[in-house]
């Protein structure tokens, strides 16, 4: 259990390895955020018949650097009615979780450096994937406090929306993570990845029959406040949402956190459902292939994220809440039940699984009937007696026929 790096105590070598891992991950994340912003702008302009950034550097690849430099040197405004401490704290509450979540992502296999067994990930805590849920809850504070401390209406509205949305979708997110944990028999991300290793049909996306992956991906996108779930910053109604009052480097930090979260969430999806660094390797430079596999899979999901942004219009607030509470959470609960039943039926016999399926179907039928009853209150009932014209007022509606009788 736990990180094998610490199994023989902590010495200078271990310390150096840890520091190097942290620095590499930090630098990698910053550079990849820079590239991700450029990638997103380029791909989305491809999908809109535009050219996109093409001035700074070759293919405009340094555009993010130019923007960042500009933001760095801009005046850092503090609104007069802002809560000074919280206003300054909020961007950090957004950025730090974004960095920390990436720490548990296994980017490669296990290598040996100077007689130390090193897992290619920053940390492998025993709580593992729970860190994701904990930190994404902390990230809600960043958004909420940013809006609240601005001392202004629109940021407050935006942050209320954002925190309601993030809390709602966290439930579905957590429930699908539980299905993964059930299937992989471990909380640690390394254990989850290892349980999917070697064959692609052992990837959780196939073992769990796609549905948890779909739910996780949708809920994850909502958790990131990315389109089509970006109503926290719906420009047409809320100016810029929770970061309206932010400028200069603090705004840059929110921006950084947003894109870093996108990368991290894609990496987490790859870890949980697509085997992480798993993939065929070759005998030349063995340690490199898992990393390349991991990066390749992550880039595919980043592309899908951009594609979603280009293709889908923003949801309305009630549609968002409907999707979260009435579809994703029940569906993830039901799937959790199925996965649990499948696990248990290995020991208790297949009848358990069948029983759960039948019970689930009955529940679903009952729910569907209830919905139908609510939508058409008088369908299937005898038509109302009476009515002045005798033409059958039942068709007009229950309220009207009661008033007529």
């Amino acid at each position: 259990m736990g990180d094998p790096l610490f199994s023989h105590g902590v010495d200078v070598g271990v310390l150096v390895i840890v520091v190097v891992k942290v620095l590499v991950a930090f630098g990698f994340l910053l550079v990849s955020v820079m590239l991700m912003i450029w990638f997103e702008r380029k791909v989305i302009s491809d999908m809109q018949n535009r050219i996109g950034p093409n001035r700074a550097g070759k293919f405009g690849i340094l555009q993010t650097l130019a923007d960042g430099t500009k933001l760095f040197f801009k005046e850092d405004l503090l609104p007069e009615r802002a809560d000074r401490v919280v206003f300054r704290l909020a961007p950090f509450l957004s950025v730090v979780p974004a960095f920390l979540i990436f720490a548990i992502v296994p980017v490669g296999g296990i290598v040996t450096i100077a007689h130390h067994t090193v897992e290619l990930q920053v940390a492998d805590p025993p709580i593992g994937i729970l860190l994701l849920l904990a930190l994404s809850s902390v990230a809600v504070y960043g958004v909420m406090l940013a809006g609240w401390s601005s001392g202004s209406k629109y940021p407050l509205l935006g942050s209320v929306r954002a925190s309601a949305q993030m809390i709602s979708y966290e439930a579905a997110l957590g429930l699908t993570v539980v299905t993964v944990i059930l299937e992989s028999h471990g909380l640690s991300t390394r254990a989850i990845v290892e349980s999917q290793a070697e064959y692609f049909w052992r990837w959780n996306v196939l073992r769990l029959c796609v549905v948890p992956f779909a739910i996780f991906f949708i809920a994850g996108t909502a958790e990131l406040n990315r389109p089509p779930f970006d109503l926290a910053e719906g420009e047409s109604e809320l100016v810029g949402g929770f970061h309206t009052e932010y400028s200069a480097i603090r705004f840059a930090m929110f921006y950084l956190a947003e894109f870093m979260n996108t990368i991290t969430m894609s990496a987490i999806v790859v870890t949980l459902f697509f085997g992480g660094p798993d993939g065929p390797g070759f005998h030349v430079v063995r340690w490199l292939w898992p990393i390349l596999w991991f990066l390749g899979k992550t880039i595919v999901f980043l592309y899908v994220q951009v594609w979603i942004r280009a293709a889908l219009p923003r949801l309305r607030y009630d549609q968002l809440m409907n999707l979260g509470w009435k579809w994703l959470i029940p569906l993830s609960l039901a799937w959790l039940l199925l996965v649990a039943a499948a696990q248990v039926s290995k020991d208790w016999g297949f009848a358990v699984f069948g029983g759960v399926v039948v019970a689930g179907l009955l529940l679903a039928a009952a729910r569907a009937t209830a919905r139908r009853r609510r939508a058409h209150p008088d369908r299937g009932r005898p038509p109302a007696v009476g009515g002045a014209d005798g033409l059958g007022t039942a068709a007009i509606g229950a309220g009207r026929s009661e008033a007529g009788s």
Partner: protein
Amino acid sequence: MGLLGETNFFGGFYVAAKQILRPRVTTEYPATKRPKPPRLHGRHVLNRYEDGMEKCIGCELCAAVCPADCIYVRGADNPPDAPVSPGERYGFVYEINYLRCIHCDLCVEACPTEAITESKLFEFSFTSRADAIYTRDELVVGDDGKPQQLPWEDWRPGEDRFSSGWMRATSPSGDASYEGEVQWSGELGYGVRPPEAGQRGERDDEATGNISVRETEAKKIPVRFGGRRR
């Protein structure tokens, strides 16, 4: 609310992905420019006759009609030994303030001698109020009959065509009974220019620089809505 039914959830993804293979609509402006409509209203020129005499007679009608009050003209008697214009008087001060000009072309309409017309140039800039006032020296066409290309203006090859009074007189929206009639005087560098064939269908769009708005717009209509194939 089906995934593939009436809302066609995945249709949007197909539409977005399809665009990648399509040509870009962006014009990279400072590097390349779109062609300008031949009757675009740009900065003015003061035209000259074939013998090099200025057409302006200093009547100040342009200044009187200008709604933005941006033209300042002073007429003076022609010096008998070296006349500037063929008539009795000439405009010895002619100034247009481009911070006020709205390019309505009313001065061009008012001018009795086709002296003032507009070129197609609108890409010029200045850094002081004084520089915004063009004087007669800058507005008068050069010895080739084309507008002067001043250093702070962005001229590209071919953009100095179609700046004379002929452009106004050949307007296809004019009375059909004047079609084919020469309604304009000769000018420096071009002589008396031929009439545009107008609505008879004998048009030489290449020579006149005419772009039919109707045809230009028709090209943009997709084939499936009845547009012509490109």
